């Protein structure tokens, strides 16, 4: 007998799990179809950042702020497990005057938007984090930046959804999307067919493949992030997350309007050839996260290599070199694990959320390169869109239609 559902969500990552939670608060008959396990891809292996200073003014910042507020409520009233959500603060450190100029400008812009962020000088930076390298001349600092344990957060959403009646089909791979006369009627899976009038594509870095099953184009690409983690450190080297400021060019200082502007053209039929590929050295964004367990997580590269999950000794070596430049004492420790994951990349770095006109009942919910920062608000907005046909806030900026120029 065929299984029936009101909504089938493809993907048991943070977006699919949080959406299942938000939907089961409103309606029944929610089935999540997950190929591997809950949070087994990027949702289980990312840095768990809910940061404001890295978010872009507009949709990105709005989604993060709403999510941040929701985490407070979720952790105190909904989740039955500790997701290690903490406002431990965060710093972006720099060592050149050029970087300082760009950082000051960024901080002023963020302050205007009400983001609690300020510049600290070398003295205060080292006071906050004594293990920082002596040549660091300053930092941006916010005491409000939050972090969480990403896998536990994904599991907590899945469990909350299950308590409210959602069914998670683990180890179940979607093999096709059933359609009839321009509307979706269900999904075919490795474990059989599920009938449903609504299907959500929350397949993260695999969302493009899922869209192709429904003969739809979706310019969302896997972006590989390589990471390492140290052994548990007897003595904590850092109190909070520290990242390295980007290297900046003279041109950027003379033309500040170019700072943080994403000018990559996006189009509906964009392919791999359009991706902004850079040499490995330039793709590294240094990032150090002390975890509750005492390990230090170190990232990251940003590469476009399809779904090749390998880690490269050269990349790991470069990432560690950069990390040691920030915290020299990391030279004394050992690495116990390395990994790579894929976040879903979009050309303007904004998620893709909304219906597609070609296929009634097919909802896109992917492109969240910052899934932990975006998930709770994304889930609420999309649950309202599904149930009331009215999202709780405007989603135009995230519309799948924006790629069609």
């Amino acid at each position, binding site marked *: 007998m065929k299984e029936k559902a009101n909504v089938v969500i493809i993907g048991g990552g943070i977006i699919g799990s949080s959406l299942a939670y938000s939907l089961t608060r409103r309606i029944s008959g929610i089935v999540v179809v997950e190929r591997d*396990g*809950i*949070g*087994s891809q990027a949702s*289980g292996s990312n840095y768990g950042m809910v940061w404001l200073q890295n978010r872009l003014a507009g949709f990105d910042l709005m989604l993060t702020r709403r999510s941040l507020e929701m985490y407070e409520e979720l952790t105190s009233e909904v989740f039955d497990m500790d997701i290690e959500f903490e406002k431990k603060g965060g710093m972006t450190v720099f060592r050149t005057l050029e970087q300082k100029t760009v950082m000051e400008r960024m901080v002023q812009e963020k302050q205007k938007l009400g983001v609690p962020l300020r510049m600290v000088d070398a003295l205060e930076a080292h006071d906050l984090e004594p293990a920082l390298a002596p040549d660091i001349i300053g930092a941006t600092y916010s005491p409000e930046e939050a972090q969480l344990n990403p*896998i536990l957060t994904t*599991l907590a959403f899945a469990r909350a959804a299950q308590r409210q009646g959602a069914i998670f089909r*683990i180890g179940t791979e979607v093999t096709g999307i059933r359609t009839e006369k321009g509307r979706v009627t269900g999904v075919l899976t490795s474990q059989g067919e599920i009938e449903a009038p609504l299907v959500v594509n929350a397949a993260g870095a695999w969302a493009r493949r899922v869209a192709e099953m429904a003969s739809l184009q979706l310019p969302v690409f896997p972006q590989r992030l390589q990471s390492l983690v*140290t*052994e*548990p450190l007897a003595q904590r080297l850092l109190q909070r997350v520290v990242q390295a400021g980007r290297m900046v060019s003279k041109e950027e200082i003379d033309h500040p309007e170019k700072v943080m502007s994403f000018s990559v053209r996006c189009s509906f039929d964009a392919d791999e050839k359009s991706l902004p590929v850079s040499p490995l050295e330039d793709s590294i964004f240094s990032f150090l996260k002390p975890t509750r*367990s005492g390990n230090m997580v170190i990232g990251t590269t940003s590469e476009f290599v399809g779904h090749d999950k390998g*880690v490269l*000794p*050269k990349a*790991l*070596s470069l990432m*560690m*070199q950069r990390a*040691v430049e920030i915290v020299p004492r*990391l*030279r*004394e*420790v*050992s*690495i*116990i*694990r*390395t*990994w790579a994951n894929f976040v879903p990349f979009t050309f303007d770095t904004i998620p893709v959320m909304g219906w597609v006109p070609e296929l009634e009942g097919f909802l896109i919910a992917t492109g969240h390169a910052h899934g932990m920062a975006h998930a709770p608000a994304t889930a609420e907005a999309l649950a309202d869109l599904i149930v009331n046909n009215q999202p709780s806030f405007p989603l135009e900026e995230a519309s799948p239609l924006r790629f069609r120029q």
Partner: protein
Amino acid sequence: MRDAEEFVCRCEEVKRDAIEQAIKEGALSLDAVKRLTRAGMGLCQGRTCRRLVSRLIAEVGGKSREELPPPTIRPPVRPIPVRSLIKGEDVL
């Protein structure tokens, strides 16, 4: 002796009852148990507890050990000093 308080994963100090609880909640693979309990995430990266955890999944979860998907084993096999990694020594 079977003791719920005994350590299955010594590196991360994960006890037998925590692992059994995870299995009862549906963690039916080494990776799923790892994600839920941290068993296998420590210094030895599961080299010691892998067999014990598979046995528990078989016993408690009612799966045969042959059915279990192989765990994801990530490099390095042994902890590598950051110094060696930076020097680009062949460590992986």
